[in-house]
């Protein structure tokens, strides 16, 4: 069990970061020289619970984590260079492959950025359809998150199977609308590609009506469970100031008590027309992140209900809106939406030709990972696995 002495592993890296004043927890367990046996373990990239090809180099002092370095890049295919090589329309199917659980919100973020860059108006009906699809994607994402998180806590698959059963129903809706369950390639600049039929809207209505009952049952199984509470409460606490400073967005930020939701802050699309609330937590630990996502799903159900009722008629896409030969004027634009995992933004720089000169994706999982080490210091390996699960990362988006 012996290990090279701590000094050799460059362990004594001291985090001289001015952020210390922001309640950044400098590692209270920084190992003094020669403090007992340190065990270097690397969890992943073939570890059953790292949510994809992601590695954490962990140094353990007994059962507690003393140092944790995330290593990724295994799934890097230079998505942004591809964006510079293809036309604006050609990049749309590639955005499905960023956060492959929510292709609808990725498409919307990209379409929003291009519409902002080229000043393309969006039809009324398309705005409502986009909200419906984004909220369905949010339901799908948070249900899967709860399933994976409980799987990391050690449930032998039961919550995950319930989550996947409901996810399949939503994916069937996406497939009957866009043609593919996960790679929808559905949004276009100025609207959506296909106009949802009456049967599709009726099917969505039945799903939305039944989802509340599923959530009640799911929470009865998990939220009150003493073992779940013991495993997740007080684990991986993220102070609000550090969360904002570290660029954390989405349910993680709201779980730390900061009520920042782009649907309210930016008011993009037709979100200002719906009244919905933004749940926020208090301790910012794994339990709060889980509960904030559960409450957010209930808000999404009410948004879906209002959107389905208020869906206007009219064209889904202005036929004269240019898709194929789009050549926006030289300039740049940064468009962002509130994706299920946080703020997903696209920064596009155009020089007047058919291909963007710069196509940058601001991925929420990538930025939310910045404080993984701060959350895990002092916890055990079992907790680090759960903390990573509660951050909800998807490697397609982290590595791009």
């Amino acid at each position, binding site marked *: 069990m012996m290990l090279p002495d701590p000094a050799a592993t460059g362990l004594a890296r001291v985090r001289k970061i001015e952020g210390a004043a922001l309640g950044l927890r400098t590692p209270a367990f920084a190992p003094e020289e020669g403090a007992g046996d340190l065990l270097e373990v690397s969890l992943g990239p073939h570890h059953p619970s790292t949510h994809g090809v992601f590695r954490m180099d962990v140094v353990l002092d007994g059962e507690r984590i003393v140092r944790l370095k995330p290593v990724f890049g295994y799934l890097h295919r230079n998505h942004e260079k591809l964006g510079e090589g*293809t*036309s604006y*329309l*050609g*990049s*749309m*199917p*590639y955005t*499905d492959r960023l956060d492959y659980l929510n292709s609808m919100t990725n498409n919307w973020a990209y379409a929003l950025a291009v519409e902002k860059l080229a000043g393309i108006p969006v039809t009324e009906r398309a705005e409502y359809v986009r909200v419906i699809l984004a909220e369905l994607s949010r339901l799908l994402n948070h249900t899967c998150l709860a399933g994976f998180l409980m799987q990391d806590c050690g449930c032998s698959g*039961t919550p995950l199977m*319930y989550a996947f*059963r409901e996810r*399949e129903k939503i994916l*069937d809706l996406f*497939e*009957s*609308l*866009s*043609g*593919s369950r996960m*790679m929808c*390639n559905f949004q*276009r600049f100025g609207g959506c*590609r*296909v*106009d949802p039929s009456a049967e599709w809207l009726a099917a969505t209505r039945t799903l939305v009506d*039944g989802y509340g009952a599923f959530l009640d*049952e799911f929470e*009865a*199984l*998990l*939220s*009150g*469970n*003493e*073992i*779940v*509470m013991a495993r997740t409460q007080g684990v991986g606490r993220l102070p609000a100031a550090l969360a904002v400073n570290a660029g954390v967005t989405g349910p993680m930020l709201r779980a730390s008590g900061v009520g920042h939701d782009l649907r309210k802050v930016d008011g993009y699309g037709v979100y200002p027309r719906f009244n919905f609330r933004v749940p926020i937590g208090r301790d910012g630990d794994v339990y709060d992140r889980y509960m904030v996502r559960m409450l957010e799903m209930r808000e999404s159900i009410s948004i879906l209900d209002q959107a389905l009722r208020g869906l206007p008629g009219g*064209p*889904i*896409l202005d*036929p*004269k809106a*240019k*898709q*194929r*030969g789009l050549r926006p004027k030289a300039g740049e634009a940064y468009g962002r939406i509130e994706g299920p995992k946080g703020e997903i933004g696209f920064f596009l720089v155009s020089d007047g030709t058919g291909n963007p000169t710069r196509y940058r994706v601001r991925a929420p999982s990538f930025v939310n990972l910045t404080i993984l080490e701060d959350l895990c210091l002092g916890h055990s390996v079992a907790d680090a696995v759960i903390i990573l699960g509660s951050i909800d990362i998807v490697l397609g988006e982290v590595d791009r």
Partner: protein
Amino acid sequence: MLGKGLLQGLAVTAKNLVGSYHDPARYVTQEYPEVQPKLPEAYRNFPFLVSETADDPMGTLRCVACQICEKECPPQCIYIEKSKDKKPDATGKAQIYPAVFAIDTAVCMSCQICVEVCPFDAIKMDQEFAIAATDRFGGLLLNREQLAKPNAYYHQIHPTEAAEVDERLAAERRAAEEKARLAAAAKAAAPKPAVPAAAAAAAPGAARPAPAGSTAPAASAPVDPVPPPAPRPPSP
């Protein structure tokens, strides 16, 4: 009281255990090979070329090798070589046809951009997903003969979509004949002196533009055959 949450959890799992025997909303497993999946009409897998009739697929391909889909395909997996000669198409007009039309299904991600940008409804998305090949290189490279499938098959897999496309093409053909008839009548009514007969006959006035392979994609592509019929762009 300690354990209340645990008992609640046990109650939920018990309800699911009992529920999975009678509640279809809970027991959703389809045992695949025996139970074939019910594919929604919009389902898409790899593309295929539409030929008007089943008996002579190569002769009646709708594709006129305008190479718009080859340019627009994001992963660049379509490869077209134009034919040297021309062949009359369904409306009798002499058209170029693709001598080589290959799609590398190892690279294609079935994103249906090619269907969206094709102005002639010549390429559509197939619904056949159980595909296997023995060789990684040649086996996944589908050439023109393997891609061509009759319009009847298109009606079979995408009924509503196929109906709309056919009805729109018929409307265009009628408009074309009607315009040709008008031009002929106008010519007959006021015979202009010394107008070479051939020129009159040759100006087809047909709505179908003969794209001279010019790369300037002037035509804005109809978004998708499903939405309301897009106005056909004026001939260049």
